[in-house]
Every structure is written in C-alpha cells, then in structure tokens.
C-alpha cells in the first residue's frame, strides 16, 4: 500500500539522476558568479516590493495631501503693474531729488575743524590740567 505521494515520487524516481545534474549545474553557476542583486535592486526587492501595498497607499495619501494643498491655496496677488502711474513717478522723482540734496550736503568736507575736548598726554600733566 502506498500513499499518492509515495506512488508519484516512485514513478518519477528515474528522473532524479537528471535532476541531480541540473541542480549541480545551477548551484555551481551560483557559486562561480553569485547572482546577488545590486544595492538598488536589493532595496527594491527587500524594502519596496514586499510592502508594495503599503507604499502605494502612502503614495496615494501624499498625492491627496498635495492635491488638497494646491486646491485650497489662495490665488497669488496680481503682480505689480509694470508701468506705474505718472503721479507716483513724480513723487518718486521728488523724493529722489531730496535724497540726493541731503547726501550732497553730507558729502562736503567740514569747513572748520571741530574743537577736541580730549588731548592725549602724560597722566601727571592731566592731573594739573584738571585741578588748576
């Protein structure tokens, strides 16, 4: 009496020799040139692919957040007019002129040298200077 498994395996026992050869070839090839995936492939296979549903869900949530953010954002104020009105231009020119005048006054060298209140010297003299 045999179980179906025993019967099936016994029936194909003759193929085992060929399967051994085949197996050894593949293992030898693996030993000679290990088929190890690169860093990106490993990242994809071990991190992304096993949790692909989770990653897809996260990506969908982020897309929703970005879409909601874009749709709720207020429209940007219109850019300042490139050709301002003549009144504004005139006031700007007046201000510019006033500024130039002020700066011109400052730029001129002082006519008289300002008195200096402190003159460096020996400490003994300074004592007499203040006590007299």
């Amino acid at each position, binding site marked *: 009496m045999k179980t179906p498994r025993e019967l*099936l395996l016994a029936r194909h026992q003759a193929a*085992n020799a060929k399967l051994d050869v085949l197996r050894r070839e593949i293992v030898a090839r693996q030993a000679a040139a*290990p088929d190890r995936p690169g860093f990106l492939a490993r990242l994809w296979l071990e991190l992304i692919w096993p949790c692909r549903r989770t990653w897809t869900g996260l990506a969908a949530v982020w897309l929703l957040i970005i879409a909601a953010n874009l749709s709720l954002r207020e429209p940007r104020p219109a850019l300042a007019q490139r050709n301002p009105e003549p009144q504004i231009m005139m006031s700007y020119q007046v201000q510019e002129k006033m500024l130039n005048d002020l700066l011109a006054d400052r730029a001129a060298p002082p006519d008289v040298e300002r008195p200096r209140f402190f003159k460096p010297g020996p400490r003994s003299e300074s004592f007499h200077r203040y006590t007299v």
Partner: protein
Amino acid sequence: MPEVADNATLPVTQARAGEPAAWDVLFRRYQLPLYAFVFELIRDEQAALDIVQETFIAAVRHIGGLREDAKFGGWLFGIAHQKCVQRWRKRTEVLLDEVPEPADDFEEGPDELLIRREQEAEFMELLNRLPVPQRAVLLLHYLEDFPLEEIVRITETPLGTVKSRLHYAKKALRQLLEARP
C-alpha cells in the same frame, strides 16, 4: 498523509544571502516533487526538466521577493505553475475547464488514501484523465500537503474554485478505488 520535511528547518535565510550550499539543500529537497508536479501537468519529460531548471534559476534570481521563509515550497511551486501556464498559452492549449461551484460537503484536512499495488496503474490513469486544473490542485495536495490557502496562491485561483476542484478530484479517485477492489 505522507511526511513532508519541516519547512522551518530549510536554509532559506542562508540562500537569501547567496550561499550555494543552502541552495543545494533547497533544490535537493524539492527537485523530485517539483518534477513530478510539472511532468504530470504537461506530460513531456524534456519540457518538465526545462521548467524545473527555469524554476530553480528564477528562484535564485528572485528570492528577494519571497516574503516568508516558511512559504518557500509554495513559492517555488507557484513559479513552476506559472511556467506551465505560460507553456500552455504558447501552445494555445485549453487550460481551464469549467468546474462546478464549490461543494458544500468539502472536507478539509488529511485523508488516508492508500493505493494498493494493483490499483497503482488505475490511479495514474485516472489522474491523467482529470482536467488539468483539478489535476494541478490534487497534485499540490498530495505531493506537498499544501493547505488550501497555499494552493490558492500557487494556482492564483479563488478559494471556492480550489475547494471545488479538490472535492471533485478526490471524489473521482475514491469512486475508482472503491469500485475496483
């Protein structure tokens, strides 16, 4: 049911790391059941050997895609089943036969089907007469004692359909074995 090697002791983790010795152990464990499964589906020795070889190469290449080490056997049979399906598609053979809806009286769990020597030829003959989808499910059940959920994953078939196929295949086999003492 036949004893099946404990999957927990298989060196799947070492195989993931690319150790050739680990691959040797894994392939040695599965080579004959896998070949029997493929051969009984496609009935061509050379093609069955080719498919087993392609399955092993694909396993080495895509081991990173395997989620649970304990499911290595089912994963390997899934690759082989896909390759059989691809072969049928190339040859434009009809793969799927219409199967009745799931049977209510389906009995899950081990069964003690034992075949006498004089019934062996009849058993194999009946197995070959079964439609391919029923044969695939029955082979997975008998060869590796895969649970229904695993057979669902391997064959990419709904649970109800797998139950139905297994039920009718077993029923047909029992009828044969009981009818001819």
